[in-house]
Structure formats: structure tokens, C-alpha cells
């Protein structure tokens, strides 16, 4: 609690660090590459989808929403880890922390900068996606917007996961672990279900532990509902939002807690 008291959530240094983090990302090649690749994928879904007779609109929605989500996560893992490591390598971190900037400021600033950048990219993709939908006269439905919104929330959570791992492991490992959490998080619910039906006791315990420790990322995936224009449960979006935000805050809190005890060289 003292950490929070010492550093108001939106303290100046954190915002400064966020701004300069974004500045750093803007010059990244990965950003451009991912953007171009995402656009190409969406455009190609438009060009190629007539091949699948009747399913055109479904394919466009599915590929578009998947691109919006996956490329955001990919950016976090590829670009975010690079940004965290650059600060370590070039002696930038000591320079920043020798100024009146607390470690909490740094963790928060880095998180905000990364999340804002990736969210802006996600929104750009969503815009292109809308263009493709308009061109192909695909009908919009409310769940499509929810899906894009949940992608942004998932990006925040995954950025917090990266921040957590970066607070104690090397950049390469934190990238790798974050990717693992992303994949495992999407399957943790399925895995638990599978274990309940078919698994032994040991497997059940592992699957249950995984389910409770790992973020349940399948909650953020409403693509099939969007594709088939199915209604979502009442209060679903609200409770997933609370879940995502809480999970993110807890991870950031842990990152700060670990990072505060680390030697910085």
C-alpha cells in the first residue's frame, strides 16, 4: 500500500515516461511491418472470400476480428519486449531511476506507453476492417464492436503480463513467457473442462491451478458470436471488463513490487 501512497497513479514522471515510450515505438520497424501485414491479411480476406460461396461475410468478419486481436498481441510481445530490453542494455534505466522517478512510475509509464501505442494500432486495424466490411457490404452488428473493445482490454492484460515478466527475467524470456501465457490463457478453460471429464487426479489439479492462476483469455474472444450474430449474455461485457482491469492492476502491482527490490545496473 505504501507504494501506492508514495506515487499517485497518474504522477507526472509516469506520464513523461509513457510519452517517450510512445515516441520510441513510432520509430520501430516492427510497428510498420505488423501494420502492413495486418492490412494485407484483411484485404486478402476480401479478395479471396468469393471463393467460399455463401460464407463470404462470415470469413471477412472472422479474419478481420482475428487480425485486430492477434496483431495487437504480437506487437506487445515483439515490440514491447524490445523496448523494455533497450532500456536495460544501454544504461538508460539507471539514468532514469537516478532522477526523481520511482520504480512504480517507471512500471506504470512503460505500461501506459505500450498499451496506448498498441491500442491506437488496434483501432487503425479496426478502421481498415470497417472499410473492408463496407466494400463487401457486410452487415455490422453490435458484437463486432464488443469484440474490438475486448481485444483492447486483452492487449492491456497481456501488456501487464509482459511488464510482470520483464520485472525479473531477460527480455527474450519475458517475450516467450508472455506468448505462453497468451496461448495457455486461451485454452485454460478448455483444458479444465477436458481434465474434468477425462483426466487423472494430477492432471485435474494442474489444470485447475492453471485455470485459476492464468488469465482466462477465452472470455475476451467473442468472435464466433460476432460471426454468427448471436446475442451475448446480459452483463457479460461489464463483468469481463472488471475481470480484465482487476487482473491488469494486480499484475502491475506485482511488477512494481518485484521491480522495487531489484538491483538496477
Amino acid at each position, binding site marked *: 500500500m505504501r507504494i501506492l501512497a508514495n506515487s499517485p497513479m497518474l504522477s507526472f514522471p509516469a506520464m513523461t515516461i509513457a510519452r517517450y515510450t510512445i515516441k520510441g515505438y513510432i520509430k520501430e520497424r516492427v510497428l510498420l511491418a505488423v501494420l502492413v501485414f495486418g492490412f494485407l491479411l484483411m484485404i486478402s480476406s476480401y479478395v479471396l472470400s468469393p471463393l467460399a460461396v455463401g460464407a463470404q461475410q462470415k470469413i471477412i468478419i472472422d479474419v478481420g476480428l482475428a487480425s485486430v486481436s492477434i496483431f495487437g498481441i504480437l506487437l506487445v510481445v515483439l515490440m514491447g519486449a524490445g523496448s523494455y530490453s533497450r532500456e536495460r542494455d544501454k544504461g538508460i534505466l539507471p539514468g*532514469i531511476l537516478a532522477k526523481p522517478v520511482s520504480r512504480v512510475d517507471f512500471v506504470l509509464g512503460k505500461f501506459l506507453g505500450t498499451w496506448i501505442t498498441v491500442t491506437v494500432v488496434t483501432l487503425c486495424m479496426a478502421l481498415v476492417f470497417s472499410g473492408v466490411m463496407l466494400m463487401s457490404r457486410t452487415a455490422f452488428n453490435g458484437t463486432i464492436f464488443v469484440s474490438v473493445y475486448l481485444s483492447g482490454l486483452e492487449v492491456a492484460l497481456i501488456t501487464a503480463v509482459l511488464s510482470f515478466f520483464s520485472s525479473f527475467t531477460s527480455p527474450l524470456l519475458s517475450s516467450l513467457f508472455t506468448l505462453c501465457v497468451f496461448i495457455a490463457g486461451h485454452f485454460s478453460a478448455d483444458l479444465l473442462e477436458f481434465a474434468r471429464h477425462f483426466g487423472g487426479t494430477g492432471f485435474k489439479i494442474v489444470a485447475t491451478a492453471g485455470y485459476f492462476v492464468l488469465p482466462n483469455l477465452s472470455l475476451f474472444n467473442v468472435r464466433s458470436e460476432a460471426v454468427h450474430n448471436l446475442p451475448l449474455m446480459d452483463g457479460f461485457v461489464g463483468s469481463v471488463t472488471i475481470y480484465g482491469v482487476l487482473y491488469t492492476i494486480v499484475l502491475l502491482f506485482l511488477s512494481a513490487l518485484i521491480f522495487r527490490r531489484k538491483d538496477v545496473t
Partner: protein
Amino acid sequence: MNVLELDKVSKSFAKGLLGRKHRVLGGLSLQIERGEVFGLLGHNGAGKTTTMRVILGLLRPDGGEVTLFGDRGATRRALSRIGYLGDETGLYPHLNGGEMLQFAGELFRLAPHVIRSRRNSLLKAVGLAEKREVKISKYSKGMRQRLGIAIALMNDPELLILDEPYSSLDPVGRRQLRKLLLSLKQKGKTILLSSHIVPDVEAVCDRVGILSGGTIQKCLSLKEIYAQKTTPVEVTVSGIDPRPLADPVRGVSLVFQNPGAFVLRCEGRGLMKQLVSSVYERGGDVLEIKPLKFSLEDYLLETLTAASADGADTLATEIEELIHAHSS
């Protein structure tokens, strides 16, 4: 009042994963007064950088206490009064010089107009005014060092901590930095610096600490040393055999002798005068009179080779052995 106090600070690093500890600082104590310029000397790996990082709270000491401006530890308040130049300058390669100073100023929460005016004057002071629009990735090493110095001064700090500030500067840059440090000293700033270039340390420091074996082995006040009246003098004599004049008990001794010339060492000027007049009385000649200045460099080398078994000298012998092994 002491601006900085270290009280029995110790720090070890884990060697490898299986926590065997490598002790770098072992009970280091140090006090630096307001307005004092303190030079930290020591061989490579002695722990100068580590000491500075502990002071700034970048490294957590295993034991002991750091007091800055009367407060315990590197608080936000203390850090806003400190300027730091690290052993790596720590610059974002994608920014230019002006932007980097802007970033530093914002982290210190300075007002925009203060940032603007300091940025311009500091860029000029370190000779980078023309390079302010150039990306740091295109800077030379010395230019980065200069920018690092400017950043350290951005908050007009009361305490400056400079880790090898002279490194990679050209001769002109070194002289400029010397002047800069002396002018800061005149303004009453406190400075802690480390360096391997002894004359640069000698030129600006009031006190020098020799770090070895994890503590400050010797602390010398250069002011006191230079104020000493009895500096020894060497006198070179020819034409006569001056050995009868030597009197080690009183402080005149023969140091060196070659055909035709003798070198005698006198402790103090009075003895020198006596010696010179007796040489002329006996029909001899004085070829040279040379005051022996205290050499910090010699002193440092003596202390370091005495204190450390694995210092620079063993490295030199190891290299020699390697060369031998290759040539035979």
C-alpha cells in the same frame, strides 16, 4: 554539514545462479561535506561504480546506511537535488540532443521555460549547440559523454555524482570539463567523481579516497599535502665527490651516482641552501635543482599494489607470460 554520508555500506553480488556471493563493498564509510570535491580512485573493478549506484538507490546495499542531505536513502527529494553521470551515458538513440535534455528536464519536473533556457545554455556549454538536431545514434562517443554531462547538470544540482566524467573526451574537452568543474566548485556545489586519469583528479579535487578491497583504504586531503612546506629537493652535483656532504640523519642523502655526477636528496629548502653553498665552497658545480613534487599517481600505484594481490600488476605479468608462451 555533510551532504553525503555512507556508513559501513556493504554490497555483494551473487555469482552465478547458486548464490555464492562476490563481495564488492565491505563496510565502506565516507563523508562528504557541502562544497567539497571528492575524487574516488581505485583499480578496475574496485567498486567505484557500485558505490555510486548504491548512493543513488539503484543498488540495494546488503548492510549499512546511506544519508543524503540529512535524509536516509535516495528519496525523491534527495534525487531531485542530484545530478548523475553514469559509467554508461544512458541515452535514447532515437532522440536528438535537445530532446534528450528535454526528457531529463521533464523527469525533474522543471517548468517548460526553465527547461528551454537550460537546454540551450547547457548545449552551448558542452559544445553541442550545432548538434542538437542530430540523432544520438549518430553521435560520437565523446559527444555522448558531453551530452551526458549536460544531462547531469540539467536540474542545477547541489550534488554531482560523476562516474569517470573524463572518459572519451578529447584534450580540449578534458580541459573544458576541468574548468567547468572548477567553476561549479566555486559556486559551492558538492562533487563526487571517479576517474583513472590522476592529473584530472588532482586538478579539481579537495580530497581523494582510494578504494580497494571494498573500503576506502586511504583518504588524502590534497590541500594539506600541497600546503606542506618540507617538499624534498634533488640536487645534481659535478666536479667534486659530494659524498662527505651527505648526512642521512639530518636529511641529506645520496640517491644516484654516475661518472661525473651525483644526485643528492635534501629534505627541505634550508638543507638545500646549505648543500649548494658547500658544493661551491669546495669548487664543485651544481647542474640541476629539482623540487620533488608529491605525485598522487605514484602514491596511488603504491597503495594499490600493496593493497590488492590481483591488481594491475598481476595482469601485466599474465600478459607477459602469454606473449612468452606464444613466441616460444
